[in-house]
């Protein structure tokens, strides 16, 4: 029995569960009141949320009680506020009353009721959000404001519009959540300041009744705040130009537009008129310009032009610009620039540049006259050369370099007031090369020839340099003085030289002289003999004989050296001013190898005139015109046995101031005879002369060539001091006899004598050696003793070429310097 009971109970449970499981039906879940709200304090609604419905249709009923009353009312209106709601209308709504509300859910099985919900209407008032929110930006005094406007929430019951709503506004820049909430008050509009320009804002509003809650925020409104906007800036009129003096255009430059689209208008008035016109044509000349056509252009009238800029914010007017069209003409550049190369006959080709005036300019009627200017430069050049051409439309160019490329440009301007046009486009000129083939050939030939010549010359120079030089510039023979070392001379150590000579000091002492003389004498004797026969033979023969000897000692002597030649040629007639100039004297000295170019003529004590032939070398620079004599020292020294006098024959015919007896001046006691052999008369003259004077005086006058007379080494041997007479005064040479040093007499030779020679006398031999001494001007001239007059012409012993005054070119130019010799031939016979 028990078992049956348990099982039945189990069965029932199972059945119940199954039923439940199968059918899912049960009593409903508990509903829940979610919200009660009043829109305007006069009605309110409540909403609930149902629980599970238990699978069966459920009914919901709302019961409420007021305050602490027990009476329960049912919801008057389930529909107005939608499903699961209850709407309490005005009649059922009491403020300041606490409503206790419960909702019961009922279905077939059972019911369920919610928890009670107490509501005080006062506190559940929440209006709807405001509507019709509109936003606007307005600039006010260059500041942008945001104007927000809206409307209060709509109500079903119009009569309740007397409610006062309070509003609140909030805004934030877009995409940022930085809300700025502003209490607006009761107004339905608001001006928002402090906005950032260029930002997009999101704006919302909400409202509230005096008690209750804030409504929801309205839907968003967005607005873009524009950038700072202002009226436009003042435009400026930049320039006005007339291209052809018939129309003109003005351009202006706008200022900033203030962020808004701006309009420009040009206004003008004419001089003397009040009326203001507007620009007739804004387009033809491009943007920001005004074109005045022919009808609107008047000349010699001043236009007053202004430009006005306008935009939403305001307008601005430019400064007035005064224009007289006459003065603003700027033409277009010239056109049709052409080049033509013209090649006239017998002239250089030249270029002709032609152009035309710009097409618009009316030059034909003379209304507009244009002047042109060229600009030229070589292609690689940097600076332009500007050439003003004037009113012509062509230009000839002559001076362009052939073969080069040039660029040329032209521009023009009106001849009176106006400005220069732009430069025309560049034109290139290519100058044809002028260089003919013929010129090239000529130049090539010239070049080749000159190079050939140069080669030849250099080759010859290399090979035969020395000879050529010697040919051109003959070497100067050094002095040949016996006992003198040429090298010492060269070195210039006179002391050593003198020591070599054995002489010390100057003037050379008699000891020295004697030695030298002795030596000299020895040599001479042998030669004398030789000479004598030759002399008889005559001059030429003598000469012939002499010459070899001469040549022995001399170098560089040519035929000119022969005394005969000299004597022949160097007659009185022979113009030999240079003969007195002894250049070669020195040379001869050298060449003679130390042989003194002495000529001592021994004067016969018998007053036989010694004729000293002195041949002057033509070109030789005989110092002081001694007795130039080429003859070797052989002749230089002659012992005169008989001769009392020495007549010096100076072959210097030309030289007037011959020291020894001027030919010209017979007053001199000495007569100069060129050649003794030739002129016996002269000898006689000489004799006569000599006889005249009681004293055997030898006036030796030697022409002094110049200060450069050959250097005479006073210390050479065979040197006898000669007192010389000053040139200034009556020049005279005093021959100083060695032995008779004491006796000095002055002889004055009449006439001007510029030259004088030293005479060294040898007492022993009664030889008067006459020496040309250029340096010693005031050297004492020793007078030859009465007995002896010997004159030695000493040639320039200086090895150097002293006075090189070769005045008279002569055939017999002596290279080696003539040594002045007294030709012994003249007196040779006398010696016998």
């Amino acid at each position, binding site marked *: 029995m028990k078992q049956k009971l348990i099982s039945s109970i189990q069965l029932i449970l199972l059945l119940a569960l199954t039923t439940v499981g199968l059918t899912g039906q049960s009593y409903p879940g508990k509903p829940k009141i979610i919200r009660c709200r009043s829109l305007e304090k006069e009605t309110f609604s409540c909403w609930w949320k149902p629980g599970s419905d238990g699978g069966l249709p459920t009914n919901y009923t709302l019961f409420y009680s007021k305050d602490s009353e027990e009476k329960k009312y049912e919801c008057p209106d389930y529909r107005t506020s939608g499903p699961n709601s209850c709407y309490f209308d005005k009649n059922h709504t009491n403020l300041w009353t606490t409503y206790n509300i419960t909702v019961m859910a009922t279905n077939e099985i059972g019911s369920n009721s919610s928890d009670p919900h107490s509501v005080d209407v006062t506190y559940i008032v929440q209006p709807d959000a405001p509507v019709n929110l509109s936003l606007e930006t307005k600039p006010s005094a260059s500041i942008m404001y945001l104007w927000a406007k809206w409307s209060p929430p709509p109500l079903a019951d119009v009569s309740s519009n007397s409610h006062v709503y309070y509003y609140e506004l909030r805004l934030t820049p877009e995409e940022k959540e930085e809300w700025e909430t502003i209490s607006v008050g009761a107004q339905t509009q608001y001006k928002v300041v402090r906005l950032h320009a260029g930002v997009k804002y999101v704006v919302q509003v909400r409202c509230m009744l005096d008690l209750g809650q804030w409504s929801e925020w309205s839907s968003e409104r967005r607005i873009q705040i524009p950038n700072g906007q202002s009226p436009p800036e003042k435009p400026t009129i930049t320039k006005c130009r007339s291209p052809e*003096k*018939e129309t003109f255009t003005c351009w202006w430059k706008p200022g900033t537009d203030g962020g808004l689209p701006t309009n420009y208008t040009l206004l003008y008035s004419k001089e*003397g008129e009040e009326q203001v016109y507007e620009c007739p044509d804004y387009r033809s000349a491009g943007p920001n310009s005004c074109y005045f056509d*022919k009808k609107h*252009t*008047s*000349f*010699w*009238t001043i236009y007053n032009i202004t430009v006005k800029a306008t935009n939403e914010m305001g307008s601005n007017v430019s400064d007035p610009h005064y224009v*007289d069209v*006459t003065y603003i003409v700027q033409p277009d550049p010239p056109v049709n620039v052409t080049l033509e190369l013209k090649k006239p006959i017998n002239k250089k080709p030249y270029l002709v540049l032609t152009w035309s005036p710009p097409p618009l300019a*009316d*030059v*034909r*009627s*003379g*209304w507009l*006259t244009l002047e042109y200017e060229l600009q030229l430069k070589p292609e690689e050049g940097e600076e332009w050369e500007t050439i003003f051409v004037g*009113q*012509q439309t062509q230009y000839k160019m002559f001076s362009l370099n052939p073969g080069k490329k040039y660029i040329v440009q032209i521009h023009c301007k009106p001849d*009176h*007031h106006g400005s220069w046009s732009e430069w025309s486009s560049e034109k290139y000129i290519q100058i044809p090369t002028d260089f003919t083939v013929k010129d090239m050939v000529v130049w090539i030939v010239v070049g080749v020839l000159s190079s050939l010549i140069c080669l030849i010359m250099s080759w010859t120079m290399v090979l035969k340099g020395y000879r050529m030089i010697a040919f051109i510039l003959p070497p100067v023979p050094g002095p040949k003085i016996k006992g003198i070392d040429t090298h010492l001379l060269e070195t210039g150590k006179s002391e050593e030289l003198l020591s070599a000579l054995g002489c010390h000091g100057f003037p050379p002492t008699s000891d020295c002289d004697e030695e030298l003389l002795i030596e000299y004498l020895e040599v001479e004797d042998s030669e004398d003999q030789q000479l004598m026969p030759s002399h008889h033979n005559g001059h030429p023969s003598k000469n012939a004989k002499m010459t070899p000897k001469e040549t022995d000692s001399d170098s560089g002597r040519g035929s000119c050296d022969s005394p005969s030649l000299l004597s022949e040629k160097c007659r009185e007639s022979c113009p030999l001013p240079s003969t007195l100039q002894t250049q070669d004297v020195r040379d001869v000295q050298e060449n003679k190898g130390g042989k003194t170019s002495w000529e001592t003529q021994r004067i016969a004590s018998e007053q036989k005139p010694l004729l000293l032939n002195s041949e002057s070398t033509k070109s030789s620079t005989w110092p002081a015109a001694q007795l130039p004599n080429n003859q070797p020292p052989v002749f230089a020294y002659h012992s005169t046995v008989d001769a009392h006098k020495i007549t010096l024959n100076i072959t210097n015919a030309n030289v007037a101031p011959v020291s020894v007896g001027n030919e010209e001046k017979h007053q001199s006691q000495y007569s100069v005879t060129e050649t003794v052999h030739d002129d016996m008369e002269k000898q006689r003259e000489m004799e006569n002369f000599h006889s005249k004077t009681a004293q055997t005086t030898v006036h030796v006058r030697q022409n002094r060539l110049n200060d450069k007379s050959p250097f005479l080494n006073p210390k050479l041997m065979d040197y006898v001091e000669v007192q010389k007479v000053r040139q200034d005064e009556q020049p005279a040479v005093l021959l100083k006899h060695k032995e008779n040093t004491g006796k000095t007499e002055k002889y004055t030779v009449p006439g001007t004598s510029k030259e004088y020679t030293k005479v060294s006398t040898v007492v022993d031999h009664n030889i008067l050696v006459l020496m040309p001494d250029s340096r010693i001007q005031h050297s004492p001239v020793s007078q030859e003793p009465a007995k002896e007059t010997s004159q030695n012409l000493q040639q320039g012993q200086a090895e150097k070429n002293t006075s090189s005054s070769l005045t008279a070119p002569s055939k017999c130019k002596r290279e080696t310097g003539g040594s002045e010799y007294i030709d012994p031939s003249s007196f040779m016979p006398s010696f016998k």
Partner: protein
Amino acid sequence: CHTSGMPTPNGKEYAQKIPREELTHLILKLLQAWKEPLSHFNQHIEHHQELPDDSLSKAKQISNMVHELKTGVEKSMGIISNSLNGMASSEAAGLSISNEANMMSDSDFIHCFRRDSNKVQSYLKILKCRIMPENSC
């Protein structure tokens, strides 16, 4: 300007339309109108110390040039006979005009003169090219 009252063509077309004689007359009238004011002006500026000597001599030079131009135009146009009549009337007009000229300031004077000389130059050029179109016209 004291010559503003004169009816002168203000553009190329107008100038070209005018017959030759009338244009010449106009030129002469203009030149005549300036004769008196220029001499007066020269006298006036001689007293100006601050002007350099160049300006004074230049002004005199210009006056002479205007006179020469007038004579030249007359001669070349061969209207000496006409000018006798024309000048008589224009001189009378010129006198009244020149009174006006004396009132002008120096800068205005120079400005007006510049303009009128430009006018004269332009008219003469037009005349020249009308009469002798070969030479650079």
